[in-house]
């Protein structure tokens, strides 16, 4: 099987963010970056499939040269080669990103194209299904279980209060939810091998975005809370506050 896994380099969400002076982007000072959470699951799914069925995993990422670090991490986990679609600014518009990915993927002959369910930074969750449409491929989003056999796939996706089982033909685009496979840690051997694996750099063909960031704001910090009391004796006071002050009961 030939599998493409599209990964995004995102800021470490555990950090405290501040805004840049244009109020349209994050202050880059002090930001640490990592592979998006769900992209790690997607890569693990791809790696497990080729371990069982043979084949190759190719990584794609859009962004400045900093994404090479994220791509090397994926190569260290076991991907065979990587492609950086180079641009200094990754647009917020999922369709612009999907266009650049589709331009690269369309001639690749992939059986499966995998994405994380959503990028943890922009939180759009649109690039996977948009890329599928541009390539005219079947697509199942947000899957939590997957079985591939004889050129067909079965996937399960969670709904509000339920789940759907979907069948699809290959080639296909899938976006991966948590819970399907825990991403492996790269071994020392993998890290050494990754340094020698091919990483190709090409310009990203993004096109004109139609969804642009007007401004960003940071939600105000929560006012400091209070300890109502200790032990079960504090329960009546808590209930009083929930009823009369917070008015939520």
């Amino acid at each position, binding site marked *: 099987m030939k599998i493409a896994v599209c990964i995004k380099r995102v800021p470490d969400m555990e950090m405290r963010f501040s805004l840049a002076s244009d109020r349209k982007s994050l202050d880059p000072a002090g930001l640490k970056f990592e592979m998006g*959470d769900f992209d790690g699951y997607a890569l693990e799914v791809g790696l497990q499939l080729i371990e069982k069925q043979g084949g190759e995993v190719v990584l794609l990422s859009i962004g400045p040269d900093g994404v090479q670090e994220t791509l090397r991490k994926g190569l260290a986990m076991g991907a065979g080669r990587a492609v950086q679609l180079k641009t200094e600014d990754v647009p917020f518009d999922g369709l612009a990103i999907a266009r650049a990915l589709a331009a690269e993927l369309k001639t690749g002959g992939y059986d499966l194209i995998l994405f994380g369910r959503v990028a943890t930074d922009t939180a759009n969750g649109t690039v996977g299904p948009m890329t599928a449409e541009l390539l005219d491929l079947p697509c199942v989003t947000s899957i939590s279980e997957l079985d591939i056999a004889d050129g067909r796939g079965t996937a399960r996706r969670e709904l509000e*209060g339920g789940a*759907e089982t979907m069948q699809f033909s290959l080639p296909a685009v899938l976006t991966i939810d948590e819970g399907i496979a825990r991403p492996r840690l790269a071994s020392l051997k993998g890290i050494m091998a990754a340094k020698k694996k091919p990483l190709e750099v090409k310009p990203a063909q993004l096109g004109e975005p*139609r*969804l642009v960031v007007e401004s*960003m704001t940071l939600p105000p910090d929560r006012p400091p809370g209070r300890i109502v009391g200790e*032990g079960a004796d504090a329960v009546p006071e808590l209930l009083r506050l*929930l009823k009369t002050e917070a008015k939520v*009961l």
Partner: protein
Amino acid sequence: MAAVLAVAEARNGELRKVAFEAVAAARQAADASGGGEVHAMLFGAPGISARAEALGRFGADVVSVVEHEALGRYSPEVFAATVAERLRASDYRAAFFAASAEGRDLAPRVAAKLGASLASDVTDFQLQGDAVIARHPAYTGKVIVTLRLMGSPALLSLRPGSITPSEQPRTARVETMAPAMDPAAARVTVTELSAQISTRLDLGEASIIVSGGRGLRTAENFKLVEDLAAAIGNAAVGATRAVTDDGWRPATDQIGQTGRLVSPDLYIAVGISGAVQHLAGMRNAKTIVAINKDKDAPIFKIADYGIVGDLFEIVPRLTEEIRKVRQNQ
């Protein structure tokens, strides 16, 4: 005058709450742009047209019903092709979807077919000249992004619960529309639709969530959390990643960076220390209550009200007191 489209979501032949929210949002947008018509689309198995009139109550002028044996379940390709065909057929200013499991899947497909702008998981919007301005929480809720959508139609998927549908009764014209492609030709088909525990409130729709962490020590002790939620009455039950990883609760119950992002009116954290990964999922709750034995636990830094102590004493007492309150209401 340009119309506004709303895709009304149904499951098992019934309209979902988010269907009314999408129609109400479309009504707001249409009124803001001079009172154009709201057109709703409703997909389903034969019989679904009986639900069409209800959409008129929230401001739909026209309901296009796409009835077909194969459309009782979601069909990504057929839905996307049919919505795109509808949007191409006339001059639409905007189209609203729910940011539900179905809408999050459908809206990007339609946007790609049309080359249209799409803002996802929108909590608020306004029309501004030729553009639509939308607010969207990103970076696990740590940053609110204001987006400009250019061109018509602008597509928006609405975060469930971010709009309170108000009734605007009118008599909707109900018309039928054929699917834009043969459902039998779809390459992706839903072969099974399972309702897990249909009586349980979904985390995204609950106004109160009681959530448990490792402090509960065993899966069996989660009963304390369920009892508290049951006593409150309209509460959903959530969990931390540590708990779902250990299999005490299903993965779908996880609240946090890699699970559900929720913003209920009241969030009660039981035996949860407050790892950053969990806080990412619930920091936008209106009121947060924490019950934990460690007074230095990070959860107390963002909780409005905290009780320090043994949850095995505090939670049963809280459940008992709330039962008394509910009996007197």
